[in-house]
């Protein structure tokens, strides 16, 4: 059993715990590499099936290729896709020019809140990882949110011996993070090994640019890279790991504790 097998087995265990313990569960699929490997891991955990609905929060500012990719694979893999939108905020003209944090909260966090209310989801599976940024490093695999979606990071449940918080008061919900322990390099190594089809925005253009993290078009930048396929990305990451993965994500740099503030209020 190599390291990727260990990661995979642990994630499958967590997905199965989630599926068993939460009656109304959904998985967030942002179309990025992390949540796409989550879909893959779910199919491994459930022997070719994905019994958990996939929620995509459409801010309408997503890079168009992401929507094409989403619809193609949702059909091909027989996924139950649920698309959510904060129509009210969009109608009122919300966009990133009103402030990146304000926009993220309105279109993503509240967009998510709406769809969770609508479907009554009590558990939400997300593809976040500890190595992405400092605040996420402090997450749990099973992380409670109160009725206002708030994350009380000062009083998190203990997690030991793969026993997770699976009981909770009404009007709270649980976020489940099955790939919390993976690194960016692990994700790409796994994509390479499993031959998981991944959206080509991650691959370098002839001009030597690629996305390392995907988000909304106005707030997501490319990095300089010549990595044209998965194997080349793995090599690139092995030799150049001193730039942070989310360096192309504008909202993180907005101010000192931007990410903590966003996440405490329910951001993914």
């Amino acid at each position, binding site marked *: 059993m190599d390291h990727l097998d260990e990661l995979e*087995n642990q994630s499958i265990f967590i997905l199965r715990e989630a599926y068993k313990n939460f009656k109304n569960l959904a998985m967030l699929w942002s179309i990025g590499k992390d949540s796409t490997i989550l879909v893959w891991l779910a199919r491994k955990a459930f*022997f070719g*099936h994905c019994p958990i609905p996939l929620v995509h929060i459409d801010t309408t500012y997503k890079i168009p290729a992401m929507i094409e990719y989403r619809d193609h694979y949702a059909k091909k893999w027989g996924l139950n896709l649920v698309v959510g939108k904060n129509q009210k905020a969009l109608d009122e003209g919300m966009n990133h020019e009103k402030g990146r944090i304000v926009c993220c909260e309105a279109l993503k966090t509240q967009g998510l809140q709406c769809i969770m209310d609508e479907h009554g989801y009590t558990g939400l599976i997300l593809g976040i990882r500890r190595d992405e940024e400092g605040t996420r490093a*402090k997450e749990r695999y099973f992380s409670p949110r109160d009725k206002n979606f708030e994350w009380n990071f*000062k009083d998190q449940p*203990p*997690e*030991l011996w793969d026993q997770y918080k699976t*009981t909770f008061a009404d009007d709270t919900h649980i976020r489940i993070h099955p790939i919390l322990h993976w690194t960016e390099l692990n994700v790409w190594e796994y994509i390479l090994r499993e031959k998981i089809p991944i959206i080509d925005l991650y691959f370098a253009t002839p001009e030597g640019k690629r996305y390392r993290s995907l988000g909304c078009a106005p707030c997501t930048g490319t990095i300089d890279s010549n990595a044209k396929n998965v194997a080349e990305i793995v090599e690139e990451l092995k030799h150049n790991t001193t730039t*942070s993965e989310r360096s192309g994500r504008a909202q993180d740099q907005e101010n000192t504790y931007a990410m903590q503030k966003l996440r405490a209020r329910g951001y993914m």
Partner: protein
Amino acid sequence: MSDNGNNLDLSSRLMRLVIVGHVDHGKSTLVGRLLSDTGSLSDGKLEFVKDICEQQGKTFEFAFLLDALQEEQEQGITIDTSQIFFDTPKRKYVIIDAPGHKEFLKNMVTGAADAEAALLLIDAKEGVQEQSRRHGYILKLLGLTQVAVVINKMDLVDYDEKVYSKIKTEYTDFLESLGVEAREFIPVSAKLGVNIAELKDEMPWYKGPTVLNMLDQFEKKPRPDHLPFRFPVQDVYKFDERRIIAGRVESGKLKVGDRVIFSPSSKQAVVKTIEAWSVPEQPNVATSSESIGFTLDEQIFVERGDVCTLMDELPIVSTTFDANVFWMGKRNLEKGRKFTIKLNTQEVECEVHEFKKAIDASTLETLSNQDHIAKNDVAELTLKTRSPVAFDLFGSIASTGRFVLVDEYDVCGGGIITTYSPTTKEDKLRDEVRTRDFNWIKSDIKPEERAYRNGHRAALILITGEPGSGKGPLARTLEHNLFQNNFQSYLLDRRNVNLGVSADLSESTVEDESARRLGEVAKLFLDAGHVVISTSNAFHKEDQEDLRLLANPYQVIEIQVTSQPTGEPDITLSLDEAQDAKAASTKIQDFLKEKKILMGHNYSI
């Protein structure tokens, strides 16, 4: 990050390491220093943190690299566990920085529980403190015995060897009392980078390894493939035509064709396939740490919580056992209150049966005559579960010998099972029954074949109730009606068993022992495929539980004739209803049909 050009699978040697110790003894500083000295920080991270310090008018500290939460940086203490990746030329590490503040013990436990080795930090100037001891104890309880002690802030005591030796002696004594041996005591200054990555000149008297050298000497824990096979069932899936038993192999190996047994139910079957999706070839063996699924040759009832093992390596099944427990709850752990125990995938209500010893974990003092423990303390105690659980002793198979306790919605304690000796009558009987079942010589005629011939499955029907309620006539009518319908019915009267099989019992032993003998005789009739009917005035709850235990896996149906039902009978008949034995007998037969015990004859197939 280094690239040593070694093509061996470097990533497979990831080492999980936790750093613990008293608050403010410099854990985060040490981690920050390790990151910086191994070149593991991303570009701009150092500058970013330095900028923040400047904005807030603070001096830069390495700890800020780790303490990502605003509150952590403002208060200068780690609140939650951080996990940071870095590597040395030898291997990769994930380093877990656990908070040292007493308030955050649960976060420390979270960090330490899945580490393979630990560094315990002690401030040279402050010496051994409350959390130094408590963390030492918790590490031991978590089964983490690969420990090195780092004596930090040596710069504040002029790199004095005497200070080092004094702490070393004091803490060695403490660890010895726990049965733990520290691998090394390393004097360092994390802030100034002394003896972290390089041995510096400040302490020529120290000849041991640097912190990084020490880390590289820690050993990876071998996977428990050599231990008995343990597979707690996580779930049973029926997404397509396959009925897949899903779970993780905690220890040992499983092969296609193995005969497996599920505890506590003792049901058996043979593994038909090991299932997997998107793999080069279908596996026929599974080993520890693998999350797998398999199908069985027979459709037996299996559910989450059952522990699957091989026939000759059974787990213990009991409702009582001794454990060492640490407590993190806001409310006390005390007698008389119900908690939920989560042991692998088993989840059962439990309570403390007896406090053997309550201990203050910061001093190791026994809190005498105390039948509760408060937050941050530990205890040796006996737990009693509402229904039997399957487990091992922590010392033999760690992953099936540990559990957490849930109070209301929250995980509030953790524990390891230290000893088991059947103390209650029920546990003793269960042990006996299990031994009987595993050694039972089975007939070549399968129970299903008998059921097909008889038109019914074997079952024990217990008619209970107050004296004079008409149970006897009802039992006789039922036996007769079943017989008339060509079913194999037999009325097993307890008096007859007492007259013969139990004739040797004296007055003092007859009460317990006669129920056991009745159960064993009933078991023989059940094995022969009969519908056994039994009735007695003397049936009380305990006897009934014994009979159920003895009759397992055959179904036991309780018919209670009473005006005030107790327990959970399958059918309750009022005294009036029981008077009309014929109608009551029909009602019982309808129920047996509904439960698919009476299936009807079908010789034409």
